[in-house]
């Protein structure tokens, strides 16, 4: 029953495929893919070099490790993606992987595997000095990943409109959402915990190409439809996955990295409210993080504080920190948001500088002693929340949570709160007002949207969220100094990096800044040789992104339209034309067929 209904639904697509594929023999292509992927899969169980000098120890025969795991996983994925193309109607149970047709997916996956594995094969020769370091496994791996690339390009294009999703029971949808999110967690975990740059580069190459393929195959669209239909379940799934990350870690080595990513991402999300939703360019945003951190540090009871005798519980610190940040935001925003245009950018930039200089000067020598100057507030005690000491290891569910693990859990809660606020505000009257102001303030005012008030609201809200993150950051790093909060430096978070995270990720989206922040943090962290040039590359990346993909890696639909007003109009016109022609040629085909019959 299922087969017949699916054939019926995908029939027009199949017709197109048949027509386009005339001339090439798809069978050879499929064989190449199958053969190559299977060989690559097999090669991961062999050793790839004879010496342990190459990071990740690729000398073991019998089971895969290091970069081999990436090859293994990509090979399996490629074989899986071959499923829909194999039998007429596809191998049962695999068709879900490519709702729009599997050829593009196969091409991307084979490229992913070739790039990732090929990179390692080249790196082995490069780092160890020559191909003499290759063993049989290396040759097999290197050669076999190339075959699928060839094969995938022999296959005819089969991109078609996806068949409508079959109605499935709610519980099954939720199960799928949970499984997919957990898969995402495992992939993320693999990326975060890669121990050396070769593994991380291999991971990025693989994940990048594979991600493109899954997007082209329509699987992402299908999954986002699923998440849109089950928003609450998705939220819980993501939350559960984020929490379980810490239980996958055996030590604090990577939890500390994750902590810093989370702080960075939280602040980037806050900035996204200001920049992405309200369209206000804030170049001194990191100062609000600093305001929160300083405020909390001053009343945390550290001996370096002027108010060392004032020791407030954390919830009070957080409240005061947020309040002071909001106040600072309103103070800066009130005079400048009345003006139109770019003054805000420069005033916020100035504010960032003023904040840093002022914190530096309030040292008792160039001003009253409040912040302890450049030495900053140090020795900030660890958090205590409801008697839970964040500085001590705790055993939860048989797993020992170290200091950074404790903070990780708190930070997950905070970022969840920020995401919740972001989503709710964006979907509300306020969000629509922001969109209107962003697109055309004059028109918005004419429609009765009070521009100033809404801009001030965005500014204050953004400042408050950054302040909240700051209150935790102070405790986490246990030191708050003025030079942590500069416009640009080589280490995140700073205002330039935050802006880059938002812009690279995608303005106005939730997942964009998360992705952007993770990438901007992980790339310099994993690739040590990259340190010297990271600011240069970020600068270039900002320029190139604005030129080629101003909507970011994860585009917001509305944003995309705003940035590509002309092109989208042209594209739509073109698409209509193509569809017309296709319709006509379809008709011709049918006529031909009838004539032949």
């Amino acid at each position, binding site marked *: 029953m299922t087969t017949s209904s699916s054939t019926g639904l995908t029939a027009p697509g199949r017709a197109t495929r048949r027509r386009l594929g005339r001339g090439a023999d798809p069978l050879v292509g499929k064989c190449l893919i199958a053969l190559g992927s299977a060989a690559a899969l097999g090669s991961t169980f062999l050793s790839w070099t004879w010496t342990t000098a190459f990071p990740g120890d690729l000398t073991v025969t019998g089971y895969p490790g290091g970069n081999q795991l990436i090859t293994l996983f990509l090979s399996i994925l490629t074989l899986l993606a071959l499923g829909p193309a194999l039998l007429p109607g596809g191998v049962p149970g695999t068709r879900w992987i490519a709702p729009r047709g599997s050829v593009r997916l196969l091409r991307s996956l084979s490229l992913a595997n070739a790039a990732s594995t090929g990179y390692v094969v080249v790196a082995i020769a490069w780092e160890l000095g020559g191909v003499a370091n290759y063993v049989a496994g290396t040759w097999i791996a290197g050669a076999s990943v190339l075959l699928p690339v060839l094969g995938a390009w022999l296959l005819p294009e089969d991109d078609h409109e996806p068949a409508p999703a079959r109605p499935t029971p709610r519980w099954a949808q939720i199960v799928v959402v949970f499984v997919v999110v957990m898969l995402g967690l495992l992939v993320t975990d693999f990326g975060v915990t890669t121990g050396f740059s070769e593994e991380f580069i291999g991971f990025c190459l693989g994940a990048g190409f594979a991600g493109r393929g899954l997007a082209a195959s329509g699987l992402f669209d299908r999954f986002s439809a699923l998440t849109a239909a089950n928003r609450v379940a998705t939220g819980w799934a993501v939350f559960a996955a984020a929490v379980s990350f810490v239980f996958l870690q055996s030590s604090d080595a990577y939890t500390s990295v994750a902590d810093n990513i989370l702080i960075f991402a939280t602040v980037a999300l806050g900035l996204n409210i200001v920049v992405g939703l309200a369209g206000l360019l804030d170049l001194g945003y990191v100062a609000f993080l600093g305001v929160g951190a300083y405020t909390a540090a001053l009343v945390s009871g550290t001996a370096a504080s002027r108010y060392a005798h004032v020791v407030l519980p954390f919830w009070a610190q957080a409240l005061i920190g947020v309040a002071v940040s909001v106040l600072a935001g309103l103070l800066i925003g009130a005079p400048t948001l009345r003006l139109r245009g770019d003054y805000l950018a420069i005033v916020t930039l100035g504010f960032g500088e003023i904040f840093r200089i002022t914190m530096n000067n309030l040292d008792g020598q160039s001003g009253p002693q409040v912040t302890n100057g450049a030495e900053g507030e140090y020795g900030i005690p660890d958090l205590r929340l409801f008697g839970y000491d964040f500085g001590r290891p705790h055993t939860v569910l048989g797993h020992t949570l170290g200091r950074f693990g404790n903070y990780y859990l708190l930070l997950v809660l905070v970022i969840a709160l920020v995401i919740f606020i972001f989503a709710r505000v964006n979907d509300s009257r306020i969000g629509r007002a922001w969109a209107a102001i962003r697109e055309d303030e004059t028109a918005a005012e004419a429609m009765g949207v009070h521009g100033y008030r809404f801009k001030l609201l965005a500014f204050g809200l953004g400042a408050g969220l950054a302040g909240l993150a700051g209150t935790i950051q102070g405790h986490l790093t246990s030191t708050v100094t003025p030079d942590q909060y500069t416009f640009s430096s080589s280490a995140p978070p700073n205002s*330039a990096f935050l*802006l880059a995270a938002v812009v690279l990720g995608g303005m106005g989206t939730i997942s964009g800044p998360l992705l952007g922040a993770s990438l901007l943090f992980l790339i310099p962290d994993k690739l040590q040789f990259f340190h010297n040039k990271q600011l240069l590359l970020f600068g270039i990346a900002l320029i190139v992104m604005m030129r080629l993909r101003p909507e970011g890696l994860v585009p917001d639909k509305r944003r995309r339209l705003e940035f590509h007003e002309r092109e989208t109009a042209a594209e739509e016109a073109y698409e209509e034309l193509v569809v017309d022609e296709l319709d006509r040629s379809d008709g011709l085909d049918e006529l031909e067929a009838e004539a032949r019959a």
Partner: protein
Amino acid sequence: MSVTVLLQLVENGLVLGAMYGLIAVGYTMVYGTIQLINFAHGEIFMLGGFGALTVYAWIPGVAHLPLFAALPLMLLGGVVVAVAAAVGAERLAYRPLRTAPRLAPLITAIGLSLALQQVVSLWYRLPGGGNAKAPVAFPSFGGKAFDLGGVLVQRADLFTVIAAAVCMAGLAWFVARTRSGRAMQATAQDPDTARLMGIDPDRMIVVAFAVGAALAAVAALTQGLRYGQISFDMGFVAGLKAFTAAVLGGIGNVRGAMLGGIVLGLAEELSSGILAHFRDTAQYGQAWADVWAFVLLILVLLLRPQGLLGERVADRA
């Protein structure tokens, strides 16, 4: 506090302000034509300084010339580098975004600013292997300062003031008398009508970028001469101050930019100098100079957003 000390502060302020003014002209001209805050202008200024230093350090013989003879060559080097960078940036980065939403060129400018700084810091080399990761020494005038009744005028100060005066006079002539200058004015006032009159707005925009860059290069030369060093990151604060000066004078107004620069320079020197002079307020002196400058900016925006030589801030959001 004696009159001499006060006059000395005024002298310092004038010189500093003249330098701010020279940079501010670039902001104001670009903003006047395409309403873009060329955030990378501070880096154009910095590149001008390194262009001049390159001529001095790398061209054999220049370092052995007397400094006043080498200055024209250095100036030429600085102007060429700065103009090339500014025109290149306009061509490659800004022009394709002319019709994009406002955020796009601004973010591009920030990216450009980061990238240019890093290029200099990573790859600039001095003869003998020195690099520009830390500030590098710049030639400066030897000899004693001129003593005008207790007020000392350094040779570099004199050069700065003269250079600024010459530049402003040249610019005034250029804008008022030449075809390009008038075409530029026309473009700034009404791009569409200007186009109808046969003016190529793209060319005018390039001219605005180039003129601004040339003046920034002059400013960079004076900076190097006065302090004896330049650094890859000197464009950030200088650019910020110059932008403040441009807003102070009324953005879009060329004369206003110079006036704003001088007002800002005076305000900075007088506030920090006078505060530093008295025992009770000494602590609020130099350390807070930048803060006073930005407080001034915010006050101006609050009280007179159109700036001192009030050009109307039109609805060019």
